[in-house]
């Protein structure tokens, strides 16, 4: 028992993880306090709108962590992680659709509105079971995981890596977007799934539920971060880095490189699925635009800005860029893409290790300035 779980709890003894979790928990607590305790109208009050916005950022942060796990540590640049995010979102969306019951516009007790509209007379087989929370939540993990498994199995077995793999992942998410746009697929086509009401019996439109979802997202981010950290600090994490830097040599040492890649890729896809599932009830809609290749590329930009192969860098990148996006698109909507592109170029040129690299340098310099460094003191 002890030996089988120690690897998972190992990150909790790490300084960087403790700091990360500390900041995250403190932020959750502060937002919760300011939302509940401060009277509405006070300058310190955090509105329900802001809480949900922050929850959305945290979903993006979890997605960025998932991308950093495969890109930073395994060297696989996935330009299609939005696909796993959206699939997780659709699984959650289907559950939320079934929860509407007969309160829809057409009042059909079983069929979602768009199916009634399309004159379907019964629920397609793949919609069965989604009225049960446990089933839907399992699918949030299993559907992205299964797609990543099949895709990864075929790609890694044929030793497809580098640019070729990036292009195929991009094609994967593009193909899924086109498929989900079709009404015949049974996922609401262009409009996607929306008009949600309840989750687990709680009304989605109340502030309390919104706060609950925000906190749940924070907890999911914390757990996802610890799981990724546990993987990268394990021997398997070091093997991943070895695969990234010298694949042939790793194979020569007796490791099955394609299985290492497959394992990490599937874990990452599942985390992306969870992020998508938490995203959907907070924004209230899921439609095929989440599959768009552009979104997946944006995620990669967040990670690059924050700093690859640090995990916390991915979180910082996702939060900062999305905050900037919210501000910018409010002030100058047309300039946002230019700003994002310019930021990306600047960071690649001046901060190749991203914001996390800047932080590390600061900490290092501070330690070097430290006068009580043992060796120097005695010398």
């Amino acid at each position, binding site marked *: 028992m002890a030996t089988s779980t120690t690897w998972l709890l190992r990150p909790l003894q790490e300084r960087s993880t403790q700091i990360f979790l500390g900041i995250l928990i403190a932020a959750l607590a502060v937002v919760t306090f300011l939302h509940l305790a401060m009277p509405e109208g006070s300058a310190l009050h955090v509105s329900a709108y802001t809480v949900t916005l922050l929850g959305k950022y945290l979903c993006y942060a979890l997605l960025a962590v998932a991308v950093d796990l495969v890109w930073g540590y395994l060297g696989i640049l996935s330009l299609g992680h939005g696909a796993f995010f959206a699939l997780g979102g659709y699984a959650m969306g289907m559950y939320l659709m079934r929860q509407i019951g007969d309160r829809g516009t057409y009042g059909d007790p079983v069929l979602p509105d768009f199916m009634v509209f399309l004159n379907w007379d019964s629920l397609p087989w793949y919609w069965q079971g989604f009225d049960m929370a446990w089933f839907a939540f399992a699918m949030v993990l299993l559907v992205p995981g299964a797609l990543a498994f099949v895709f990864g199995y075929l790609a890694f077995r044929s030793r497809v890596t580098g640019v070729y793999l990036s292009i195929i992942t991009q094609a994967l998410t593009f193909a899924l977007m086109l498929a989900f746009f079709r009404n015949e697929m049974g996922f609401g086509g262009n409009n996607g799934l929306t008009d949600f009401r309840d989750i687990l019996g709680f009304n989605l439109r109340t502030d309390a539920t919104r706060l609950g979802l925000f906190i749940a997202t924070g907890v999911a981010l914390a757990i996802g971060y610890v799981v990724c950290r546990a993987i990268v600090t394990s021997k398997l994490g*070091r093997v991943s880095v070895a695969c990234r830097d010298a694949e042939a040599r790793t194979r020569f*040492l*007796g490791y099955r490189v394609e299985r290492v890649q497959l394992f990490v890729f599937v874990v990452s896809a599942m985390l992306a699925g969870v992020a998508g599932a938490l995203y959907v009830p907070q924004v209230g809609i899921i439609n095929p635009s989440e599959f768009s290749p552009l979104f997946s590329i944006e995620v990669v930009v967040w990670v690059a800005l924050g700093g690859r192969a640090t995990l916390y860098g991915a979180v910082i990148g996702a939060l900062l860029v999305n905050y900037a996006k919210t501000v910018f698109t409010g002030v100058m909507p047309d300039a946002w893409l230019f700003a994002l592109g310019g930021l990306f170029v600047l960071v690649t040129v001046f901060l190749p290790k991203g914001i996390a690299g800047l932080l590390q340098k600061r900490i290092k310099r501070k330690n070097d300035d430290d006068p009580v460094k043992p060796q120097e003191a005695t010398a």
Partner: protein
Amino acid sequence: MSMLDQLTNRDQVFDFLAPVASPVDVRHGPILYMEDVNVSFDGFKAINNLNLTIDDGELRCIIGPNGAGKTTMMDIITGKTRPDTGSVWFGSRHNLLTMNEPDIATLGIGRKFQKPTVFEALTVFENLELAMAADKRILPTLTAIMKPENREQIDEVLEMIGLKDLRDKLAGILSHGQKQWLEIGMLLMQKPRLLLVDEPVAGMTEQEMERTAELLTGLAGKQSVVVVEHDMGFVRSIARQVTVLHQGGVLAEGTMDQVSNDPEVIKVYLGEEA
């Protein structure tokens, strides 16, 4: 699942029919035995009636001009190239010609290539950790915990390759020579019976060469070591037994003095250098 894999895989004997892996048998003398081996590439005879025997625990140097077949010989031993005719045995039990590369590697033949490849983003210690003989499947690797005896084993190798002070430094900052030693160390972690080393001192300074000579001579006795090298000074400093290859066959064999006084050898090799 794995059973299905096996049944559909037609180029392998089913695992359950294959004989259980047995240890290398060196009771009858040599650890490596090559007899009448021939290889030709498009009509060019790369290896021509090669006969070579390496004793258990021996340190053997192989020299020869370019194109003498040194690298091809290593390829045959490690299973990369299949000879046209001849036999190659590891101990007196394992016919290497029936085995593939990973099997030969697990049986205990380690090979060091000319250009050093180490994992630069990992520390010296971690490089050795990954090379360590262990269960290398996914879950055991994920849950692996460093045991005290593993740590001792790594420290032992660190001592042997002289990188003890650099154990927590990234391998990327090592000098060329230190990377070569680290890679030899990684081979040692796999506990091979026979070590094939291709031009270990190419690009090394005098001191690094000396250190490498010490390292390789220190290994002999515990492991059998075959060194292919161009540098005659280096060969003279480590070799007890030297084999000269020429045009794919053995031209001469003996101590360095015997070999360097052999008129044939002087003609084809040393003469060419002078």
